[in-house]
């Protein structure tokens, strides 16, 4: 049999999926990362300074309302980070792209930090508003549960030596965990009606915060999204380099 027939040459994927190639992914992330760092820095700087110093105090909440510029974006990202991990896990299960599994792994610690920021700023906000640092309010409780899910996910990654086994098991956990996280959210809602204010951002204009607070908030959210992307890209790059090092060491050991 001749080895030159066309079928023996693996087809090179093009378009979006071609970034599943670790080397191509690394090159791409190295090109976009500087821009991402700068953009997220600018957005966060502008949004936070605008929000903290150039918006009026709320007539009921006073200056404490300004913690919204940290609280809402971090809470959004805490949930979206988990959602991104879910998508990445699904891609790993279906298409077996290593970069996808590593991106999920890289996103978890970022998500945890976002959850912690949301919980902490929530406590700082809640203290003057509700007179307590912590209340078993459904939203707060859900975030605490989400935090536990992140911890379990990261612990499972850390506990298993073989990277592919770890990727498989954490993906299954992420899928199952997502279902249970949603279930827990409803259960917790049922369990305690809570004192948390309604959504800060929604399509229903009546409930939304006033425009003066709204625009700097959008800038802050953009900043958090960008810095999340930058951190995940950066951390994924680190994970890829780790695996490259392992591969090179394995190759050297054979010679």
């Amino acid at each position, binding site marked *: 049999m001749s080895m030159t027939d066309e079928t023996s040459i693996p087809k090179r994927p093009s378009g979006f999926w071609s970034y599943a190639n*670790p*080397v191509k992914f690394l090159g791409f992330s190295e090109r976009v990362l500087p821009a991402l760092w700068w953009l997220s820095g600018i957005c966060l700087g502008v949004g936070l300074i605008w929000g903290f110093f150039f918006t009026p105090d709320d007539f009921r909440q006073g200056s404490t309302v300004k913690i919204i510029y940290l609280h809402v974006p971090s809470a959004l990202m805490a949930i979206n980070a988990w959602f991104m991990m879910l998508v990445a896990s699904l891609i790993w299960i279906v298409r077996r792209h*290593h970069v996808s599994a590593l991106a999920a792994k890289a996103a978890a610690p970022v998500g945890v930090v976002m959850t912690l920021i949301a919980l902490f700023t929530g406590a700082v906000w809640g203290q003057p508003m509700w007179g307590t640092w912590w209340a078993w309010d459904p939203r707060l409780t859900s975030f605490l549960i989400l935090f536990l899910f992140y911890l379990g996910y990261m612990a499972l990654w850390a506990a298993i030596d073989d*990277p*592919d086994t770890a990727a498989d098991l954490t993906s299954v956990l992420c899928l199952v965990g997502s279902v249970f996280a949603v279930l827990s959210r409803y259960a917790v809602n049922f369990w305690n009606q809570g004192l948390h204010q309604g959504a800060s951002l929604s399509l229903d204009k009546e409930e939304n915060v006033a425009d003066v607070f709204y625009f700097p908030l959008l800038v802050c959210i953009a900043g958090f999204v960008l810095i999340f992307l930058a951190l995940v890209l950066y951390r994924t790059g680190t994970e*890829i380099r780790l*695996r*490259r090092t*392992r*591969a*090179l060491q*394995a*190759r050297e*050991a*054979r010679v």
Partner: protein
Amino acid sequence: MLDGLSFGLAPGQALILRGPNGSGKTTLLRTLAGLQPPLSGEIIAGEDQIAYAAHSDGLKAMLTVAENLTFWADVFGQRDIETAIAAFSLEPLRDRLAGTLSAGQKRRLGLARMLVTGRPIWMLDEPTVSLDVDAVALFAGAIRAHLGAGGAALIATHIDLGLDAEVFDVAPFRAAHDARVGASDEAFL
């Protein structure tokens, strides 16, 4: 771990796998038994024809010899455990708890398990570990009877069982790279 090897097994035939420690015999057997997917290549034999015996026998210390065999017979949808007990002369041990058996006796029980599966292809990984000379003879007899009844066996072993079997050395097929660390990491180079 192994690369480019291929072999077939006909009814009534036994094949002895040879190779130094760590050459991939266990991996090959586990792959053939369907416990792990092959990195490449194909296996032409139904998983439901293969009975696999590993280093550990899956015996429960708190069950008797007969109970252990009955359990596995039930799982494989078989009834008869007497043939297996007779083939490995386990009658005197029948009602002893498996935990009280010696290493060699446990091994005999583990091998007797193959007979109650009722499957034609046996895959045995180092079956003679901790067996004495008489027990090895019993084992070789059981294999011969199995082959005589149209079965087949693939045995990874270092000792001579006195079987009329082909020997297949896996050493030359050792893959150029160590797949345990390699295969998934190679993608990153």
